[in-house]
């Protein structure tokens, strides 16, 4: 059964179409993998087994008639931020207690229309606010990757029956796994962990400041945040509306391309959905990058960045150069202001979006003597610490007397950040290569980060610029650090040029290979 869960989406697609395997079989394989692993990894908060079996049965009927869609019979995990009709949808917050929408988000509706099977809802940081998946009401997600060290191990002498030796003993060098539990990154930590641990073939995710790309980098998976306006935001719980975008997390570049093709659409229900046909992203994979101009922004070399990240970046540059790309040094001078500007814009939008959780129309209600008291008590009990912190910041920066100093200033800086990118793209740069994160995955309950919220925010230092400018960005695994943890590189493209990202990421993947955690769970 486990081989079925190790198939990529493109492999499973071929076997399903060729009737070598059935949707029912692959779905069962995933459901039993989830049953075994989830008590340890906590990637799923709800498993929709019955629904998955029904959907798989319908897929098998379609496949039998040769009428299967682009994702027919492919089992996927869905981040809890996506509204799924009749199924638990809480953005992993207590304030949405018991909420089951009467509608389906456009992105998930697109996936079901293409034949995908829903395995369940995935854990995430509450309202997508976090970089470690530790702010979830349902507890932290565990990264299937663990640190390891090379050590000499003594091989015991073992023998079988009548003196037939299996091992003659001696010593060998092996990687010893550390027991410390690591975060999968966030906010799409459940998505990244589930994809990496073979608990779904692929997953939906969302990215407001790095929430697809950072967890992908922490788990050795591929994650793409498309251009703002490429995927409809309709039916997705809103965090910061001018930054939020949905995208997939997948095991390889091709799978990410397949998933994005189905997720993206033009949607009249989202006024920011851009009226452009969705291209065949898969067709971009394998195209040569000879002559492509790759920009290397000097501002992404930050203080305190581990040597290994710099080395990985250099390796990425070398791979693309070897493939015939032209490497050019570029400058994006306002890079360092992206994160502070984000921590004004995103909380401001969040404070407005989250005003709707008032205990009246859905979710949690804490009874109280009058209506204001009810609002205040409901919101105090329903929101976690990080969410409250951001609502407070947002409310403060939008409050009378501070709007110009904070919000307006941040939106002006945001225009400068966007202009930096426009300038380099106008100069002929096709794609920008940067590290995806300033470090590898860190430990659950890291004391430094718990003590200082800004330390946690710094995780998004390389990814947040892309959201501020509305550009597409992909994180692709590029190697392991000395402790055996995956590290990723990021490619940033022109608006709506996701094809170049897939094309270039595939070259990195070809050179670096793909990475799987050693199974301990």
């Amino acid at each position, binding site marked *: 059964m486990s081989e079925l869960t190790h198939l990529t989406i493109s492999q499973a697609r071929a076997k399903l179409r060729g009737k070598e395997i059935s949707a029912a079989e692959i779905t069962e394989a995933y459901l039993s993998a989830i049953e075994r692993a989830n008590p340890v990894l906590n990637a799923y908060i709800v498993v929709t087994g019955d629904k998955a079996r029904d959907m798989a049965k319908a897929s098998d009927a379609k496949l039998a008639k040769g009428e299967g869609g682009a994702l027919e019979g492919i089992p996927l995990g869905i981040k809890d931020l996506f509204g799924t009709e009749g199924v638990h949808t809480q953005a992993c917050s207590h304030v949405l207690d018991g909420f089951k929408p009467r509608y389906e988000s456009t992105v998930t509706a697109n996936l079901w229309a293409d034949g995908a099977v829903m395995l369940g809802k995935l854990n995430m940081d509450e309202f997508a606010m976090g970089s470690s998946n530790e702010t979830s009401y349902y507890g932290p997600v565990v990264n299937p990757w663990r640190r390891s060290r090379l050590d000499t191990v003594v091989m015991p002498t073992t023998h079988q029956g009548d003196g037939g030796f299996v091992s003659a003993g001696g010593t060998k060098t092996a990687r010893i796994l550390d027991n410390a539990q690591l975060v999968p990154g966030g906010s799409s930590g459940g998505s990244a962990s589930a994809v990496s641990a073979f608990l779904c073939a692929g997953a939906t995710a969302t990215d407001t400041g790095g929430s697809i790309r950072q967890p992908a980098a922490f788990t050795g998976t591929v994650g793409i945040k498309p251009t703002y306006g490429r995927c409809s935001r309709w039916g997705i719980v809103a965090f910061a509306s001018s930054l939020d975008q949905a995208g997939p997390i997948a095991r390889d570049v091709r799978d990410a391309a397949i998933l994005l093709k189905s997720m993206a659409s033009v949607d009249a229900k989202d006024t920011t959905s851009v009226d452009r046909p969705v291209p065949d992203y898969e067709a971009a994979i394998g195209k040569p990058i000879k002559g492509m101009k790759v920009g290397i922004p000097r501002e992404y070399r930050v203080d305190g960045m581990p040597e290994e990240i710099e080395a990985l970046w250099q390796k990425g540059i070398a791979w693309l150069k070897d493939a015939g790309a032209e490497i050019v040094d570029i400058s994006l001078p306002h890079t360092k202001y992206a994160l502070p500007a984000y*921590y004004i814009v995103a909380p401001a939008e969040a404070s407005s979006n989250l*005003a709707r959780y008032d*205990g009246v129309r859905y979710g*949690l209600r804490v009874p109280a003597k009058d209506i204001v008291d009810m609002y205040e008590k409901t919101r105090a009990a329903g929101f976690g610490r990080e969410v409250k*912190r951001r609502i407070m910041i947002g409310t403060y920066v939008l409050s009378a007397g501070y709007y110009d100093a904070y919000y307006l200033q941040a939106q002006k800086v945001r225009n*400068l950040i*966007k202009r930096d990118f426009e300038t380099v793209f106008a100069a002929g740069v096709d794609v920008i290569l940067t590290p995806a994160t300033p470090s590898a995955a860190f430990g659950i309950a890291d004391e430094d980060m718990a003590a200082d919220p800004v330390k946690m925010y710094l995780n998004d230092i390389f990814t947040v610029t892309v959201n501020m400018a509305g550009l597409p960005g992909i994180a692709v695994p590029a190697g392991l650090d000395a402790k055996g943890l995956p590290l990723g590189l990021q490619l940033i493209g022109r608006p709506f040029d996701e094809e170049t990202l897939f094309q270039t990421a595939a070259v990195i993947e070809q050179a670096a290979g793909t990475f799987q955690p050693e199974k301990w769970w």
Partner: protein
Amino acid sequence: MSVDLQTVKRVARLARIAVSEEDAERMTGELNTILGFVEQLNEVDVSGVEPMTSVTPMEMKKREDIVTDGNKAADIVANAPATEENFFLVPKVVE
């Protein structure tokens, strides 16, 4: 700029979040850390720069002013904590 305990309590009131004395004190420290971090934006010269209103240069799509949806009262109140005959129930607002 930094916030004091009174400001934090006022902002919590504006945000409709009940905070204990202890919460407010902790938040004061956290908020000041974040506000200290965003302070660096003041060093950016933004003269002549317009504030961003949209990341993609596009005209807002407008729908025709016609009824396309409705008659879903039961769906709309389905998730409410307290309802009566398709109305949301709340504590008494007017005496």
